[in-house]
């Protein structure tokens, strides 16, 4: 969701600045490039932050249980993905 906030706030800034009646020219390439760099770095920082806390996934407890068990078995058979959690049951 944070990306949407970033993208919308920047679109707001860029589109807003360009579409104002007083705007004599669209924002310069350099300014837009700076926005793009800042957004990339924010996304990168967000990744470093979020990757520290893996999602708590209850693979066998809810929802399409049989489906997930089947897929995990398939993964295990193929050797992908890397790690298969043990079935707690």
């Amino acid at each position, binding site marked *: 969701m944070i990306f949407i906030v970033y993208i919308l706030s920047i679109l707001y800034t860029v589109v807003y600045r360009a579409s104002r009646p007083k705007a004599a020219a669209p924002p310069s390439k350099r300014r837009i490039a700076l926005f793009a760099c800042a957004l990339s*770095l924010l*996304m990168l920082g967000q990744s470093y932050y979020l990757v520290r806390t893996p999602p708590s996934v209850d693979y066998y407890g809810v929802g399409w249980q049989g*489906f*997930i068990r089947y897929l995990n078995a398939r993964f295990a058979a193929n050797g992908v993905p890397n790690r298969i959690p043990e079935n707690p049951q």
Partner: protein
Amino acid sequence: MMDSRGRSPSMQFPSHDHRRPDSQIFLWLLLGAIAISIAVLNLALDGNVGATLGLVLIVAFIAISVFRPSISLYVLIFLALAVEQMTQDYSWTGRFPYYSNLSNIFPSLTGLAINPIELHLLCIIVGLTIRFIIKRENFVRVIAWKQLLAYITAIIFFILYGLLRGGEFLISLWETRAIIYLVLLMVIVPQILRTQDQVRHMIWMIIAGLGFRAIEVTTHYVGAGFSLQGSGNGWGNHEDSGILATLVVFALAMLLYKVDRKQRVVLMILVPLMMVSIIASDRRTAYAVMGGNLLLFWVIQGPVIQRKIFSYAWKAGIVFALYLGAFWNTNSDNIFLAPAKAIREGFAGDDKAAASASYTSNLYRQVENYDLQRMITERPLLGTGYGGKIDYYMPVPVEWDLGFYITHNQILSVLAKTGVVGFTIFIFFYLSVASEIGFGFKNAVNNHYMQAVLVLVAAGMINHLIFSFFDIILIYYRNNVYLGVLFGLASTILDLQRKQSEDVPPSPISGRPNKEAQHWLLLQPPEKAVIG
């Protein structure tokens, strides 16, 4: 000098009676040659009338594409929007393989990885090239073309980089094929469509294509008793809801500016069907797209209109908040309650009870995002390149083989595969386009129809960027064709504005003759006739 009927030479009109005999002979010879060719073709096909007619139609279509690329382009956008890329059992257009590779349509053509839409594009490109050679037309400037060039270069670089790192070329082609459509159409459309009338015709075709989809999805939904039973995972295709949301915003713009009565009336008839289709598609992202588009619609307006819109919007916002509050815990699929349920499930995250049926859908997105973020932190600068597998640090319930290569969150995927360098170029391109659209909107203050079209273009871009964050939209053919055409229209509009500002009388903004110049008050008085 007068002729025998007392008419001056300038009053004589050409008629069929005066056609030169040699041109008539040529016409008859041509018709004869065509008839003989069809007969020979029919014999070669063992008298199969259907196959003969099909081939004749294909040849005729190629001829139209080459000699009138604008007509072919209108057909392309209609087919791209009306025909589904991922067909369902119940699809009306399921038997029309517009997006399938020829090797899938004709099994004997093994390994021919080209599809009808690419052949269609190829015909248009040939026609356009011939037109440029014969007519020596000027090249219309494409919006943000330098950034577009950087974007294409980056894509090619990351394909090669991925291959060097052990990726597969076919996979990288899957990942970038649709983006190439976007780039091609972004360049081609403004070269073919150069007048306001042509922009209007293209909008008609977009309305027709999406109107067809809205009618189809609504028919399925109503046929199932206003339920999702039998739909699989919502009626219609995933991308339909987002694309339809852009047209709803366009309808709002048309209402606001009160332009083009015919298109406005048709849109007003279609809007209820489009809203029903969005609900029937059961896509939570569609509501995020709609919200983003409405916000952009407000942002892009001038201060006076902004205040006017806000005076309505805050009241509508309170009503909507009350509606959400009242039905937040609903699990009903009722058409009026489905939006509240979908929005709650979108916010539910890993809350199993709140997410209910969408739990698994939320779950694999979370795991995918985690895996992508791990990939990003492993290779932050240049990523993995295109063509490689996703590094699954946590297992994901994947339903299809492409899931090993392509994730739902396409925006994070760009960062994971192309690193900070590629992602910056990607964002730089889209933001540059956004700023040009915004500036074009400001300059079109005296042409509200063009302003409405630019709102549609901006809405298309917002749909692309938001939907791609949740679903595989960045590499979908239909979305990229649609966005490529919209960006092309923006180039046409900005070019028309440039010509107007340069005050070039021979190229009026409309394709029709300049009405002002034809006005009876401005016409030169006729020379006085001297009698006697």
